[in-house]
């Protein structure tokens, strides 16, 4: 089985190397075939891991440890070089500081015989997401880059594929020092991908992503340092042995949690993720959805048995809950489609970490459900954003007005994507529902009451946001009796349709999906599976039930009906123009941008900084 796990790291790298080695416009088809091959191969490998006897622990040869150390130094020196080259003070200073801390860690790091690889069900779950959603994005990228620049396509797709391997490796290492190396490798990947277009804005945003993520790296190193100082621990599995023990020193865990907050683009470190939108759209898709940012909830989930119920967990709940609401609020002010998606990613990452920090089996189940469905939906939405940009020249909300008349399929997909993030009965809603009901058990804690308010408020704010966009897309001038489905390139269909199908089928069979696929992961994280069961389509939770007929009913209303609406034509009625109370007004309507919210932005950021510091200082026990 070890070979399969290694293959999961190496296959994407080999494919990446192959794609990279085949430059030029003429070899485009060959590169596409190679990229297509990654999907079945990685899925098959993941399937093997998923069905094997987990957890797998693997010891590593000594040369690998040396290699990692050498790689660490090279990576940080590269960051330093970039900082010096582009005269960016923060990047260089943070790189220097990391070099210093790394050296310190290596000097005091104890020899340990704990296995350096630890592949449990949670890791396999992440493999699953990377190998399906991630590869679909790569496939999509081949077509996208064909429309942008064939010359640099090989480079771009190669980076994406290479990144999938890095991601697989990052979620399966046990050694925190290696995790740091891979964490910074994902930073490198985001840096390289964001600056891909090499214009001024790209470079600026890329450097911002670089320094912000380095803060996360520093937090990991500090966490590791204090872990060694207080416990002599260098591996995640060692930290997990602290679970349930009274009076543990929280400093290492506090720093690790902070690094998750940074990677998860939680305020005030959210700007690097927003900056990612200047890059080609597949970059946003891969950074936002499937992979990169999912390291953040992954890290919190890893630590959740230890931090469960502590002050750190409660502060994390408040911080991420605050981000969930305020990122949603700020998203209302945006008029760029990709920026709206970016803010909603930040917002939902907050929700994922919120539920992960609660740490009970139901909450972890909710968190994993969110991770799964969010990965799929966000990938879908970003792909659609790319399609709208390339095929319909629509980048801003203003441009997508009345898109329904031109692109029914795209509009339907985007609507399904948006609705699935808020409305009953989609997967993300089910997760939120379970989380609220779970939090209701702990109402004597302020943090949990806060979490309910945050979840309820954030949920409706996102609903407001999404319906605003859906409303603009579906506006029509008048009746249209015949409509033409737009012609979408085959590759775009191949990469988006499976995601749509998954969202729908997965939400209909949510009970079985949670019971059969997600609950084993919960058992691996928490120690016991969540007390849910599936009766047909009905999902039975400890306190309540989501009936199958409710799910079906909502689907009939939500999904079939709007699509049906294309075919409904009322006969025997007269058509008129808008009445508008008889006033003679221009029927050209703009959008709501909620400028009033911009005035609270400084307040939101200040609060976010304060909560961030509180999490670190109080939660991390630095007082």
């Amino acid at each position, binding site marked *: 089985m070890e070979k399969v796990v290694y293959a999961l790291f190496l296959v994407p790298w080999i494919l990446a190397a192959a794609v990279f080695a085949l430059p030029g416009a003429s070899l485009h088809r060959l590169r596409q075939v190679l990229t297509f091959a990654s999907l079945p191969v990685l899925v098959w490998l993941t399937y093997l891991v998923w069905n094997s006897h987990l957890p797998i622990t693997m010891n590593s040869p000594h040369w690998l440890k040396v290699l990692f150390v050498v790689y660490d130094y090279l990576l940080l020196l590269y960051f330093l070089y970039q900082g010096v080259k582009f005269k960016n003070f923060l990047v260089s200073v943070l790189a220097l500081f990391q070099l210093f801390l790394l050296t310190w860690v290596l000097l005091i790091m104890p020899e340990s015989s704990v296995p350096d690889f630890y592949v449990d069900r949670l890791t396999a779950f992440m493999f699953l997401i990377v190998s399906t959603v991630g590869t679909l994005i790569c496939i999509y990228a081949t077509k996208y880059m064909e429309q942008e620049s064939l010359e640099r396509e090989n480079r771009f797709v190669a980076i994406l594929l290479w990144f999938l391997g890095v991601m697989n490796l990052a979620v399966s290492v046990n050694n925190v020092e290696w995790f740091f190396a891979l964490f910074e490798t994902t930073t490198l990947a985001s840096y390289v991908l964001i600056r891909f277009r090499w214009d001024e804005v790209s470079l600026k945003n890329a450097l911002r992503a670089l320094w912000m993520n380095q803060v996360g790296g520093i937090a990991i190193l500090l966490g590791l340092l204090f872990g060694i100082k207080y416990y002599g621990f260098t591996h995640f599995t060692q930290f997990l042995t602290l679970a349930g023990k009274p009076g543990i020193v929280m400093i290492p865990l506090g720093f690790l949690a902070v690094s998750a907050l940074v990677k998860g683009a939680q305020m005030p470190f959210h700007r690097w993720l927003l900056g990612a939108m200047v890059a080609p759209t597949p970059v946003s898709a891969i950074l936002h959805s499937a992979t990169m940012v999912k390291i953040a909830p992954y890290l919190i989930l890893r630590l959740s048995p230890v931090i469960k119920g502590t002050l750190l967990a409660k502060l994390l709940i408040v911080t991420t809950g605050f981000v969930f609401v305020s990122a949603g609020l700020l998203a209302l002010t945006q008029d760029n489609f990709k920026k709206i998606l970016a803010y909603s990613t930040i917002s939902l990452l907050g929700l994922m970490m919120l539920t992960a920090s609660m740490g009970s089996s139901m909450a972890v189940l909710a968190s994993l459900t969110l991770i799964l469905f969010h990965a799929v939906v966000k990938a879908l939405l970003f792909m659609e954003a790319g399609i709208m940009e390339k095929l319909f020249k629509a980048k801003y909300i203003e441009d997508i007005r009345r898109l329904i008349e031109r692109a029914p399929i795209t509009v339907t997909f985007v609507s399904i994507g948006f*609705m699935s993030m808020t*409305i*009953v009965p989609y997967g993300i809603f089910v997760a939120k*529902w379970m989380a*609220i*009901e779970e*939090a*209701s058990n702990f*109402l*004597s804690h*302020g943090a949990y*009451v806060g979490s*309910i*308010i945050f*979840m*309820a*408020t954030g*949920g*409706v*704010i996102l609903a*407001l946001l999404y*319906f605003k966009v*859906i*409303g*603009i897309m*579906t*506006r*029509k001038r*008048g*009746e*249209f009796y015949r409509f033409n489905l737009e012609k979408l390139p085959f590759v775009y269909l191949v990469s988006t349709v499976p995601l749509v199908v998954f969202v729908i089928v997965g939400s209909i069979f949510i009970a079985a999906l949670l019971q059969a696929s997600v609950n084993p992961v919960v058992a691996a994280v928490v120690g016991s599976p969540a007390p849910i069961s599936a009766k047909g389509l009905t999902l039975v939770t400890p*306190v*309540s*039930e*989501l*009936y199958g007929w*409710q799910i079906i*009913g*909502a689907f009939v*209303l*939500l999904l079939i*009906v709007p699509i049906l*609406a*294309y075919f*409904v*034509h*009322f006969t*025997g*009625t*007269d*058509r*008129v123009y*808008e*009445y*508008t*109370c008889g006033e003679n007004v221009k*029927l*050209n*309507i703009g959008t709501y941008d909620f400028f*009033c919210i911009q005035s609270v932005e400084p307040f939101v950021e200040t609060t976010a900084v304060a909560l961030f510091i509180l999490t670190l200082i109080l939660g991390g026990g630095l007082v």
Partner: protein
Amino acid sequence: MSYWEAFILTLISLVIGGFIYGLERIVRARMQGRVGPPLLQPFYDFFKLMDKRSIIIHSFHAFMGVMYLIGTWFALFVLLSGGDLLIAIFFHVLSLAFLVVGGFSVRSPYSVIGAMRELLHMVAYEPLYVLSAAALYLVTGTFQVSGILHSNHTPLFYLPLLFVAVLLSLPAILKKSPFDTAEAHQEIIGGPEIEYSGKFYEAVYTAKWIEYIYAFFFIFLFAGGNHILGALLVIFSFFFFNLLDNVTARVNFRQMVAFHWYILIPLAVINLMLIALWRS
């Protein structure tokens, strides 16, 4: 409540809602020193509207009006069938979605503004309802509506502040003054309703009757197993919100959201935390 009872009650909710609306118009008129229309006036309107020539802008818009009725009806059935209260609340959001998408789908400024404000109404009252569900769970130990209706505890006695908050946000869910920004007849002429006419307006109009039942049933839940008290609560809140409708002027949407977020929700939270702390 069995499924059949719930089904029948949902079916006749239309008639009950019509009567409530008729009664409301009488009560409101009497408060203003008028005689008011006959009790059956909403039904007369119903039949008159059914008879009208159908004029629509486009089928999608008209269809969404019909869907709003069906969606609200379904949401009411979800609530009455005794299932999960939170799910029922979110089904209500789903039904509103149709009205909103319908309102957005035409190029009429009033309709679009109204649809947007409809969403803002939701932003205002939705968190309060979710909190109420959590609070009812805290008192009765169940999220199931049927469980709450058979509970030995009377949530009202534990949750007076929350009840006040829900009572004060009742105008927001039913779009009555002072929180009637989404319809605001003198300002945006009914908001999303403006472009409907004839049968299709009838659908939207009737859906609002169902919303009455929905909102008052929510009030009814605050009495738990004590159904007589529940009936009294409903009657009281009916008169109270009519009074409120008569004596208040419309606030703008910011004031509405601010009132809900900064006054009603904290009120609910204080109640919730005190109860939870007392119990733990």
